[in-house]
Each structure stands twice: as structure tokens, then as C-alpha cells.
């Protein structure tokens, strides 16, 4: 099972490099989804199927979709529709698609493989995760709650203002 881990890890690294080198946001996001999928497979091969599912539901599912929605809602003009047409060319989606295909093949292989020991170690089931979250690690869960509260209060305050502030470097060049 070593090989499945390394393939998934390589896909994750490759996809993440593409995320930071792409100029177009949507292209970067496509690779970001692939990166999350790859990490999820990594979790799976390491014996954490529950974490793998969470990774897909929360990161690849909810968060990235939200980001894409926000980007698409920002300024929809005729130009953007043209852009969107360009995005649907194979040149754009072939890269992420190939990487995802590798992951899919790997996953199918894992499920259909003859050897029963799919995982590198004993798998951690959802029940065990829940038991530890609300057992010894309950303080951590509550601290995470406070972390979210700090984030929300801060984002609320910073996001409310409308006033545009010109950066001091830009100011100087304009004057």
C-alpha cells in the first residue's frame, strides 16, 4: 500500500504547485479541488476514512464552492461570460481532470485490491473520532469554538467598512 500513498501525495504536491502558479483564479481553484481530493486519498491510505470523507465534504465541497460562487458573483458582465466560455476549453480542464483520474483509478484499485489490508495501520473509524473529540480532547473542541468566534467578530468588523484606503505607495505615484 506504500505506492498508493506516494502516488496520491505526488498528485497533491503537483496540484498545489499549480494552484500557486496559475494566474487565473478559476484555474487555480480547479487545481485546489484536485489538491484537496488528493489529500483526502492520502488520509484514506493512512487509515483515516472518516477524515477523508470530511476533507471532501468540507474543503473540496463547501469551502471551494463558496469561493467559486463569490468570485462568480463579484462582477458578472458580458465580458465575463466570454471568459467563462474560454474556461470551458479542454486546455483548461484537462490538467485537473487527468490528476483527478489518477486519484480515481487509485481509489478503485484500493477497493478492488486482493489484499485486505487497505490501510497502512489500523483504521480510525468515525466513532473513535467522536469519542476522542468529546472525551479527552473536549477542551480542544471548545477552544476551536473560541477561535471561530475571534475570526467571525474580526471579519465582521473589518468587512463592514466601505471606505477605500489608498495605499501609501500608490498615493505617491499618483500625486
Amino acid at each position, binding site marked *: 500500500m506504500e505506492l498508493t500513498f506516494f502516488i496520491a501525495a505526488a498528485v497533491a504536491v503537483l496540484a498545489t504547485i499549480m494552484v500557486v502558479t496559475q494566474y487565473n483564479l478559476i484555474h487555480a481553484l480547479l487545481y485546489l479541488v484536485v489538491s484537496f481530493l488528493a489529500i483526502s486519498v492520502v488520509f484514506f491510505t493512512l487509515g483515516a476514512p472518516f477524515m477523508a470523507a470530511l476533507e471532501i465534504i468540507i474543503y473540496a465541497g463547501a469551502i471551494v464552492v463558496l469561493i467559486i460562487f463569490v468570485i462568480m458573483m463579484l462582477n458578472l458582465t458580458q465580458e465575463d461570460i466570454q471568459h467563462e466560455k474560454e474556461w470551458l476549453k479542454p486546455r483548461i480542464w484537462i490538467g485537473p481532470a487527468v490528476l483527478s483520474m489518477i486519484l480515481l483509478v487509485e481509489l478503485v484499485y484500493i477497493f478492488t485490491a486482493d489484499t485486505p489490508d487497505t490501510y497502512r495501520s489500523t483504521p480510525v473509524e468515525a466513532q473513535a473520532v467522536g469519542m476522542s473529540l468529546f472525551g*479527552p480532547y473536549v477542551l480542544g473542541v471548545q477552544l476551536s469554538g473560541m477561535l471561530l468566534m475571534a475570526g467571525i467578530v474580526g471579519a*465582521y468588523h473589518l468587512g463592514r*467598512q466601505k471606505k477605500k484606503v489608498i495605499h501609501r505607495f500608490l498615493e505617491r505615484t499618483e500625486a
Partner: protein
Amino acid sequence: MRLNDLTYLMPLLVLVGASIVTMLSVAVKRNHRVVFGLTVLAHLVAMYFLLPLRGFTYPIPPFLIIDGWGVFTMGLILATSLFVTMVSYAYFEQREERKEEYYILLLLATLGACVLVISQHFMALFLGLEVLSVSLYALISYLRTREMSDEAGIKYLILAAMSSAFMLFGMALMYAVTGTMAFPEMAAFLNSGQEMPLLFLTGFGLIVVGVGFKLGVVPFHMWAPDVYEGAPAPVTAFIATVSKGGMMGLLIRFISETNGYRYPSLLLIFTIIAIASMLAGNLLALRQKNIKRLLAYSSIAHLGYLLIAFLAGNQLGVEAVSFYLVAYFITTLGAFGVVAFLSDNVRDADQLEDYRGLFWRRPATAAIFTAMLLSLAGIPLTAGFVGKFYILASGVNTQQWILVGMLVLNSIIGVYYYIKVIAVMFAQPEQKPELRKVLHPAISFASGATMAVLGLLLVWIGVFPSTLVQLIRGLLVTFMASL
């Protein structure tokens, strides 16, 4: 988690409860005075619950441990945060923007720092650090209408996130080697082998990046001047004290629990960092015309001094760190308190020119600022002098002659720019100072009284240091036994 744990967690629970109550009160009706009162009350109640926790060592597995060091640093953090709150009221009252969220974030940041200093597990460490950092992102860029605030906030956000990533990777490597994230088990693993595994050392090096960033030591100091300048003055005081002190508390706990003083490679890293911080901080401060940036560079140098005592590693060293933290906190709070006090509603009083002839306009404020600067420079009769003396003693005690030499050299360099500011304050003003709108006396009274208390504490500790030394020794007696 047992019911008894709750008694020991009361200070943290009070902070959590207060932040939630404050948030709800803001949701019902915005009232600066009520929120301010709630925040002050929360700090006082948390300190009240902290008092009976002295003299115990009470682990709350797997995350936290309440012991003498934890109680001392938590008390220090709470007191500092209380002083920051006191100074904040007059500062934010002058500004039109919404003020109430500031106090919620301040409470949460304090909570994060408190968790940091009593954590004995990487997960608690990281959560505490993130609660502190995330609150600070918003606090730094709190005054959105200022042009510098966005820049400071973004800079801190990116660099803090980056350093957190380094830290997480370091933790992952250490976990891979030892198979545990709790400090005591990690110590047991290290004690079983003679050599430190290379992967563990790599992980530790990555953690040093995160720690160094929060401490603002060279070479992770780039953010300090810009963030100090862009953040509101009370927030700057908070970053310079609570955030750095929390990290220092954690560092000492981690190194002494895992018995890190055995490894010369670790000590070498910190020796280089200490020397670089002292030199870079003091040399960069020499030509500074901006008070906030000057204090930023000076705090880089002071963290270098602190690392000398930290490197001593014995009982005297920890005592010296504790004493110096107290002295440095009082001094920094006082200095930034004066900056906040003199700021008007357009910008902070951060230019050296704002202080020209301050003594002739506001003699009391100038006197307090002078005392604070003299303490930073380490002139006798101030807390800073005794603190520096303590550090020197701990350095000499362990024969770290290079570090001691650098400390002496840098103290001399430091005197130059502190005295320069004092000289400007006592210079005769060239033109008549324009009259500023004076706040209601009751409002500036809170700030003024806080500054006076800080000034008195500074001189009192400087003249009678034995009271504080006894207090520190009494609190740390359980912690010292483990060294």
C-alpha cells in the same frame, strides 16, 4: 475532564464567558462604557480565580497543566491586558468607528495567550496560538480609516499564517519521531535515547521559526516595525507585551519539560538569535525618527536580552526571565500608554517632533515617559536596571561571556537613542503648540491614573526589587524543582 478541573480552569472560563457576554451585550445595544466595564470586570474576576491556584501542580491531561510558572505568566498576562484595557477607553472614545468589538477581540486574544502558557500539548499550543493570532489580525487593522492599518494587518496576517505553517510542519515531524504530541511523553522518549534524533532537531528548528516570529527576534523581525507603526497604540502595547510574553512562557515550559538544555545544538540556535537580535535591534533604532518604530526595534533588542537569561537555563535564569518580563511589560505598557495618551483622533503621536518640548506642555506625561525610557535603557532606580542586572548575573553565573559582553555593548548603544528622545522632550518648543480638544476629564482620568500606577510600580520595583523577587520565587518553587 473531571468536575474538579473546572475550578482550575476558572480563569479561562471567565474570559470565555466574558467575551460571549460582551458580544451579546453589543448585539442588544452598543455602549462603549458598558463593554469597557465588562472587560475590566472580567479581568479582575479572572485574576481573583487565579489567586487560589498558586502552589499546586495540577495537570489537566492531555492538554493543560496548571503550575507555578503557568500561574505566574497567566497573572502577568491578565494584569497586562487589564492595563491595556484601561488605556484603550480614552483612546477609542475619540474615534468615531465602532469600538465595542475591540474589547471582545482583546478578551479572546488574552484567552489565547493564557492557553499558550499553560499548554503541555502541541494541539493546545497551536489552538492557543491561533486564537491569539486571529484576534490580533483584526485588532491590528482595527482602525480601518487609517491608511497604515490595512498594510500592517495584511503583513501580520501573511507572516503569522506562514510561521504557523512552519510550526505545524515542525510539530508533525516531532510527532513522527516521538509518536506523541504531549510534552511529558516527548520528554520520556528523549530521555530514553542518548542522541537527539535528526528529524526531531529539524522539527524543532521549524518550530523555532514560529516561536521566533511571535517573539519578533532576528531574523524573524521584519514585521515588527511596520505592524507597530500601523496598529493602534494600545494594540501595539498588547503585541509587544502579551503576545511576546505568552510565547516566552511557552518556550521556557517546552524547553524545560523536554529537558532541551542538554542539547548544545539547540542552545547554539538561540545564542545566534540572541546576539543578532540585540545588535540588529539597537543599530536599526539609532536613526529612527518614529517613536513607534523606535520602540519596535528596542523591543527586538530586549527580547535578545531576555534570551540570554533563557539560555542560562538554571533556576537563576528562569527567575531572571520572570523578573525581566515584569519590568519590560511595565515599561512597554507605560511607553505605549503615553503614545496612546498623546494621540489625537487623526493619527497616533508617533513622530519624534510630536514630543518636542513635551515637558513644558505636559510635565507629568513627560516625566512618566522619561521614566519609561530610562527603564528601557537600564538606568538605576528603575525596574529595567534591576532586570538587566538579573540577566547579567544569570549570564555570568553560567559563564556565557560572549552573550554578557554583547549585552553590555548593546546597553551602551541603546542609551544613545533613548536619551535622544528624552532630550527632545526637554527641548524648548519653537512655536506655540496648537491647542488640542481636551476630552472629558473623567475619561482621561482612567488613562492618567493607569500611567501613574505604572510609573509608581516602575520606580517601586526599581528601588525595592526584593518584594517581587520573593513573589516570583514563591510562585516558581514547584516549577523550579523540575529544572
